[in-house]
């Protein structure tokens, strides 16, 4: 059995913990991080907009790209350490949501966390990338809270006329 754990900034510890709890001992666990290539692209673009500056070596996009690679490595290091069991680490770069779906192809379980405002339940609990992955996931999905889940008493009142 293969379990893919999507490691993403801000919410990854909950995903690692959930994988430790729910993945069978003999499962092959893959910790996946995807560096969004839009981010260095943004810095390249801002520099390209400075017409006439030349000096390709001053392009901040290159530095941001290197920093992104280093930061992804550190994040996966921390995730592997927190997981504390044998696992495979996987670094990818590209369109985050598409890479995650591609890696989850053929897996038995994909673990990811909700994002959005944690103080309020309800709509908008998934960002665009997470929404895409949930919609297009090619396998069962385990969606976890980034922190202990709130109780059912936090449900809003049902819609309709109040008596």
């Amino acid at each position, binding site marked *: 059995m293969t379990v893919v754990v999507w490691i993403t900034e801000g*919410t990854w*510890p909950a995903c690692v913990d959930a994988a430790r709890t729910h993945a069978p001992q003999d499962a092959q666990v893959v910790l996946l991080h995807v560096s969004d290539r839009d981010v260095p692209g943004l810095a390249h673009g801002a520099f*390209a907009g400075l*017409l006439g500056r030349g000096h390709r070596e001053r392009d901040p996009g290159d530095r941001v790209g290197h920093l992104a690679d280093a930061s992804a490595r550190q994040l996966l290091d921390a995730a592997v350490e927190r997981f504390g069991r044998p696992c495979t680490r996987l670094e990818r770069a590209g*369109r985050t949501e598409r890479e995650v779906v591609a890696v989850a192809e053929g897996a038995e379980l994909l673990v990811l966390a909700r994002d959005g405002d944690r103080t309020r339940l309800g709509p908008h609990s998934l960002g665009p990338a997470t929404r895409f992955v949930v919609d297009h996931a090619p396998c069962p999905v385990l969606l976890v809270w980034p922190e202990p889940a709130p109780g059912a008493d936090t449900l809003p009142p049902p819609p309709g006329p109040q008596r």
Partner: protein
Amino acid sequence: MLVLVGAVVRPWGWPEAVVAVPAAGLVVATGAISPAHALAEAQRLGPVIGFLAAVLVLAQLCDDEGLFQACGAWMARTSAGSPRRLLVQVFAAASVITAVLSLDATVVLLTPVVFATAARLGARPKPHLYACTHLSNTASLLLPVSNLTNLLAFAASGLSFTRFAALMVLPWLVAIGVEYVVLRRFFAADLEAGAPSPGGAGAPEMPLFALVTVAGTLAGFVLTSTVGIDPAWAALAGALVLAVRALARRRTTPAAIVRSAAVPFLAFVLALGVVVRAVVDNGLASALGHLVPHGTSLPALLGVAVLAAVLANVINNLPATLVLLPLAVPSGAGAVLAVLLGVNIGPNLTYAGSLATLLWRRIVREHDAEVGLGEFTRLGLLVVPAALTLAVVALWGSLQIVGT
């Protein structure tokens, strides 16, 4: 047009000036512009370019002194592990740095620091990078030194340094406010995702000397403009103070300082100015003259700003400024500043003009990076019309209160 294409495509990695300077020579040689006009244009642009060089050197020396690293440490410490607070700090830092040390400093020097800071906190970097790149345009409204477009307009407007700032402070704040509201909502999911901050970042060591020099330079801008001296001298003095210190401490070399002045870029601006003047003299002025609204009523200012924004998107904000300034000057300083609102806020729509967008896609492909052009444009469509309209209203209000 050829000069622009040359600047964008940069065949064989040549500096932009390699195409632009011969082109400027060509328009003079063929009589497209009279030598007297070319000389007048060069004399007008000379001080502007000197000013620009001094600010570029000042920013680079501030980086050498560790100002931007200290800024990153400050953002990390004060955001206390909250991505939402980090966004506020990035807005503060990028707005002030863009205004004082120009948009080049924000794009080249601050952007990597902001990414590193977000990564250190474990926050998702995208909202903060977007804030940096957007504010390098939007927050460059405040001072003449914030953007090359401002320096050109400042020279043409006849305003003093302090009056320019007084008129632009309200539009600057309004435009930054719109950016903040839109980015905060657009990236809500990423900003709410939290950051498992490792914390423990100690108090950063502030590069006091650089900070005092920059503050002194700002005071110098105010002083020179009240006395009636060109404020470029204040920028030069600030750059000299930092340069002497850096050289004495062997932190930099004379060659590195000259490099940071970006001489080929200065030559490019001069040549572009002469070429654009030739194009304007040869019919563009009369063609566009009908399109440029006259006067400083609110609808006229809006019209000028929208036209400038469109032109900045179709070509690029630098040539757009050079083209529109001579047409706006007769309507007075209000119209000149409206041009600036358009050319400075407008580029957030398609990224510094369609030509540069083509280049961007090419560079990005070279680096094996992807471009979320859809996301960028969606965000631009939310920000630019609102920011531009409200900033023009703010400018109109400032003109009523402060006057020109």
